[in-house]
């Protein structure tokens, strides 16, 4: 034995705070741009997806009941933990053939975005809601609420910054999230899952599935416990998501996969509004 053999990681899914293999037993190869085999990733099935929804649905109740201040602190802590492991994210991306500069940019953009979005947890409602001056003796206001379970598809071009934008946006306003990551960009979300598992984010609030999103698009769009689809997608996947959502009228936001994740939009209330519902309340006032 000339030198020490490297210990290769077995990558698994992240559902309800645990790391199970896909119930299907199927895997998908992940290779670098040079064709070197990096890993066998789990190929998530529809059953895995339904289990993730069940975890996310239960966890969302508690997460949305947490105070906005606490949610902000938990997300900021999440960002701190990612920061301390940032080189791991850069290395993992480089291993697949991305340049160090691009990999580093994506990681730094992602962490900064998460910090920015964490700060919205106790502020978004101020910007998105309103007190409405109706013409009558009523107190009338519109307040934002979390939509519920979010299914999100990250961008292959910007795996970490898109994933953290989606997690930050969904979680800041009280949703839970299921990330469906394409194998080509799955390593970053899977590393995030490991950070998440030892962070203060409750189990089930963040779930990560790896598979080609086109295989789960229909299931996700048609699932009645999923309230929002937020996806970097185009072409057939985009159409499948929107057509499936037409059956139950869930909210769908689709952005082009080539979107520039460094713009202010991803830290804006307009982006956060993708993950909220608006409730208007009337109350008469009188003595």
């Amino acid at each position: 034995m000339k030198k020490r053999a490297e210990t290769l990681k077995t990558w698994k899914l992240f559902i309800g705070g645990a790391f199970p293999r896909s119930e299907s037993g199927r895997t998908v190869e992940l290779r670098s741009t040079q064709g070197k085999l990096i890993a066998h990733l789990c190929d998530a099935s529809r059953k895995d997806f339904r289990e993730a929804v069940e975890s996310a649905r239960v966890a969302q109740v508690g997460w949305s009941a947490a105070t906005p201040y606490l949610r902000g602190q938990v997300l900021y802590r999440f960002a701190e933990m990612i920061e301390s492991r940032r080189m791991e994210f850069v290395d993992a991306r480089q291993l697949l053939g991305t340049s160090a500069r691009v990999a580093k940019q994506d990681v730094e953009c992602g962490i900064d975005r998460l910090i920015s979005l964490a700060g919205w947890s106790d502020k978004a409602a101020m910007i998105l809601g309103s007190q409405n001056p109706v013409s009558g003796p009523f107190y009338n206001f519109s307040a934002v609420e979390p939509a519920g379970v979010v299914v999100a598809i990250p961008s292959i071009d910007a795996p970490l910054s898109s994933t953290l934008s989606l997690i930050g946006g969904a979680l800041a306003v009280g949703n839970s999230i299921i990330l469906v990551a394409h194998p080509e960009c799955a390593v970053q979300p899977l590393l995030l899952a490991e950070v998440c598992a030892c962070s203060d984010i409750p189990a089930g609030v963040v779930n990560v599935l790896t598979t080609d999103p086109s295989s789960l698009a229909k299931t996700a769009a048609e699932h009645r416990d999923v309230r929002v689809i937020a996806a970097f997608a185009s072409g057939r996947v985009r159409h499948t998501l929107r057509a499936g959502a037409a059956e139950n009228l869930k909210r769908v936001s689709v952005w082009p996969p080539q979107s520039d994740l460094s713009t202010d939009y991803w830290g804006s209330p307009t982006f956060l509004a993708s993950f909220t519902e608006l409730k208007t309340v009337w109350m008469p006032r009188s003595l």
Partner: protein
Amino acid sequence: MIIPHSSTTEDWDYASAPESLKVSVAEVHKLFIGGKFVKAADGGSFPTVNPATEAPLASIANAGEKDVDRAVRAARKALRGWRRTKPLERGKLLYRIARRIQERSRELAVLETMDGGKPIRESRDVDLPLTAAHFFHHAGWADKLSYVARQSTAPDGIGVCAQVIPWNFPLMMAAWKIAPALACGNTVILKPAETTSLTALRLAEILQEVDCPPGVVNIITGAGDTGRLLVEHSDVDKVAFTGSTSVGKQIARSCAGSKKRLTLELGGKGPHIVFADAPIDQAIEGVVRGIWFNQGHVCCAGSRLLVEESIAQDFIRRIRDRMKMIRVGDPLDKNTDLGAINSLAQLNTIKGLVETGVREGADRFDVKCALPERGFWHLPTLFTRVQPSHSIAREEIFGPVLSVMTFRTPGEAIARANDTPYGLSAGVWTNKASKAYEMAQQLRAGVVWLNCFNEFDPASPFGGVRESGFGREGGMQGLAAYLREEIGGVR
């Protein structure tokens, strides 16, 4: 429907108090395209009747594919100039429209009642004031959009908007659609429902009177086919629909493969929750207003009454007593509380669901009173012993039919209220403010009325969650439906 609660009034006969204004209706109505009234390309037409008498009122042009295309092209052509019109000038046009509607409001109210069957008291006191207010409110937004659009300092409209509206509040729905679209610099093709086209076409006259630039608003008439052609037209940028959930889903499907922006305001099965600690007299009036306003043709109607068990018996008895005082009949009579059902088709739908309710085992109660010989009528109806699984507890009836259930704890009330795919409105009656706000928090609905019901205002965003649709109408948040969303640039 404000009648003093007193047992003596029951025996009184009210002398009729018919609305005296006679509104003349032209025999033939054309399409309003590019600022002009034009015939349908194939000369097609359909009749519109007064649902209270079944008498034909007029013949309405039926827009086909060529007409839809012509209207979309007119709207596209007008877009450039309208977009470049100074925002304040756009607002000034909306102010003019609001004023004209106020001036002609009595005529419009009478016409609305003749064509749609709703009591004149409601079209006069609710529909028309809210229609004018909606234009007035949005007129003021036109030059303030940069304070609303968060991602853009020079906010812009979306473009050509296809808007399809229902028959329950014909003119008010036209205002809810047209006013924000114009304020944000869009152009519009509006299709009213086929049973209630007349007031929308009178609005077209008003648009001519106030010199609205040709093509900025086009109004085309027809039934579902016309609506489908319009929303599926390839040169439409935005679709806004108010109507049933099933049609809303069809529209969402047809838009799935396109870049069209979509907002939907759909059906509901609104829970109306009454706690034992409620102000009971007001709650009775609220429940009555919640379901028997506008013959129950209200998407946000409180059609599921949930009463706390300890007061249920007495409360239901009082609702029944109150029902006996609802006057059903000639919508043009100023004493009338409940007018005609909008169409024979809708009457049959209501009757069908009522029969299903009886068949599934609920107890039916309705008041006995004489109805006119002709016309489409349905008595106020109350169902007790309703199970959550019954059709009348799950399906939108869109008529004067109330389903009553009971609950023991606030938790049970919330669980029952939220047990529906819809999420448009909800009502809560309790004198305990902390309980009211916690209920508001936990109910899944876009609008929650605490100790009131069926209140509307142009400054208050209205719209649903879940299968009641998405997007808001009214208020600051309603403008987002008509502003182009600026997202980060694409690399």
